[in-house]
């Protein structure tokens, strides 16, 4: 029997308004989702052209992560992962810098020091992930601890996958956050496959959100292909944390629609599973909802699509103009200097 609450889908425009989004906001969410997918589709092209060193990872099927980012306040912070491009896009990272990051150029957020989605713009309240998932959960909890010590009404959002839920960092982070009722929201991108490992080999319970109860806070399972439900639940959790209500574990259920990385054809995922979840494509679902509930017209739809296309074409051009890093800078920044602390955070 499930312990966690299962979130209902959002039905009408009225309900969405109550959850805090007006029609313009909705169109913006749609635009960000299209941008997210567009970036990753173009990443595949760049990869095939041999312009992306190393490997390439996408979050196809997880574009509803835009909903979580939309629910965050401007001063909130988060630690998005490699399936959460939508979070970077929604927080305002310029797409050309993402392409530059993919290609290891100096204008990527890591200036070529790290690859793929191992990036973040700290000015936008994001913290760059590491490969050792879910190592960023304790870090997110630490951000929340700082907010709690200073009694600031800010919230940290920590992402992890269902695979990483099997590691001890998850437990330590959630337990500590629960004990201290810290303002943090744990978002699990449950895309059902950790590389080739299915969920039943990662955890033995019906869902992961049910674990929250054991840590003394609320767990919610939400359809991770329904951006509006994701948004509403994320907002509830974030505002609850902001008001001192402690953490929430939000499990967003979706399917990783591509391999673990570009080299992986995901032969181990049953074909029927892909077919079933393809019918729940987050972008297509939201587009249909907008047409039905928010009078999205052909003109508007076309305008948004062509706007995204233009944005990304320009972004790819600009990123390709970005130089590769100079080997003379190899050792720059291994250590921080006192001037590095001259940031709004460290004042």
């Amino acid at each position, binding site marked *: 029997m499930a312990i966690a609450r299962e979130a209902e889908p959002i039905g009408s425009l009225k309900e969405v308004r109550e959850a805090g989004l007006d029609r313009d906001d909705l169109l913006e969410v749609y635009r960000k989702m299209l941008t997210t997918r567009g970036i990753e589709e173009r990443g595949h092209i760049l990869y095939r052209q041999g312009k992306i060193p190393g490997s390439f990872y996408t979050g196809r099927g997880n574009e509803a992560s835009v909903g979580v980012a939309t629910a965050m306040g401007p001063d909130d912070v988060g630690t998005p992962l490699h399936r959460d491009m939508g979070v970077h896009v929604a927080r305002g990272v310029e797409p050309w810098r993402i392409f530059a990051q993919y290609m290891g150029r100096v204008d990527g957020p890591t200036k070529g020091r790290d690859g793929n989605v191992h990036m973040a713009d700290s000015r936008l309240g994001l913290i760059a992930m590491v490969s050792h998932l879910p190592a960023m959960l*304790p870090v997110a909890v630490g951000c929340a*601890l700082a907010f709690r010590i200073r009694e600031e009404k800010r919230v940290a959002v920590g992402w992890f996958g269902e695979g990483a839920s099997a590691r001890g960092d998850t437990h330590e*982070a959630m*337990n500590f956050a629960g004990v201290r009722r810290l303002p943090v929201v744990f978002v699990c991108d449950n895309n059902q496959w950790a590389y080739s490992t299915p969920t039943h080999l990662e955890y033995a319970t019906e869902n992961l959100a049910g674990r929250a109860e054991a840590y003394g806070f609320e767990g919610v399972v939400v359809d991770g292909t329904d951006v509006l439900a994701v948004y509403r639940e994320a907002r509830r959790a974030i505002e609850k944390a902001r008001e001192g209500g402690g953490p929430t574990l939000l499990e967003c259920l979706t399917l990783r629609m591509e391999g673990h990385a570009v080299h992986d054809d995901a032969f181990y995922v049953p074909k029927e599973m892909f077919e079933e979840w393809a019918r729940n494509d987050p972008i297509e679902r939201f587009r249909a909802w907008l047409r039905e509930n928010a009078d999205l017209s052909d003109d508007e739809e076309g305008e948004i699509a062509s706007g995204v296309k233009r944005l990304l074409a320009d972004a790819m051009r600009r990123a390709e103009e970005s130089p590769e890093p100079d080997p003379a800078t190899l050792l720059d920044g291994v250590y921080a200097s006192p001037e590095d602390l001259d940031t709004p955070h460290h004042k």
Partner: protein
Amino acid sequence: MAEMTYLQAISDALRGEMRRDKRVFVIGEDVGVYGGAFKVTLGFQEEFGAWRVIDAPLSETAIVGGCTGAAMMGMRPVAEMQFADFISCAWDQLVTVAAKQRYRAGTPVPITVRLPSGGGFSGGPFHSQNPESSFAHIPGLKCVCPATPEDAKGLLISAIEDPNPVLYFEHKHLYRRIKTEVPDERYTIPLGKARTHLEGNEITVVTWGAMVYTAEEAARELGDGSVEIIDLRTVLPWDKKAVLESVRKTSKALVLHEDTRTGGFGAEIAATIAEEAFEDLDAPVKRIAAPDAPVPFSPKLEKAFIPQVEDVLAGLRELTEY
């Protein structure tokens, strides 16, 4: 000036920084109500409150990871590992996250992790280790190993001020044994600057932490004033210049540490001397370290494990006669 034990100097420095800078907070197991396993933070919670002297669950990963997040949000966390040995549980947060964040993401991580380290009182394999060499291999970290009360204070203040993750190894065998004058005022000691503990002209001993005193006793027993002791104070960064200058003067070098031998930090020092001062040497570089074994529990075995005065004395005699 007041006379202080090594432990009091650490406590004094930490209290001073917490009074001076509200961004500084302490987190660890039993650091609050209990005042820490070694009482370094005794009375801190009464003075600073439960949100600046935080009793954490038994979760080293959450403690160090939490410090990393808090530091990114502008705090200056000081974590206490109850014993340096337990830092293994937080390896990933230090090495994977904190050490690399500045380089790859531009984000400084100004945290200090206090590590009560070292043996000498039957702590056994899990309460006696000196894990500084493991971390001295990690670019992005700094490793501090004070030997005197004066350095314990100045180096801790520097560690807290430093914009990088700093591991502060405080030797448990020095806590109450070493008591000297410590300046009352706030002062810092630059990380990466060695100290000459004893001056001499014939043999250079390079060491740090509690071994400084073992070396000193051996030198006094040798009794001819020939030994110069360089106390590194920090092993990452380490003061290569001071070591090479001394070796060029004395032409003989003995590298001494309490950690085990193979891959211990002494190997790096010996290699550097061989590379850069070979022409100045009158004898092969001598290394004295613990043998490659876990730290044993029995007092008899532990004494055989940790380098003793007579071991160092034998090494010095060997070099004298070479």
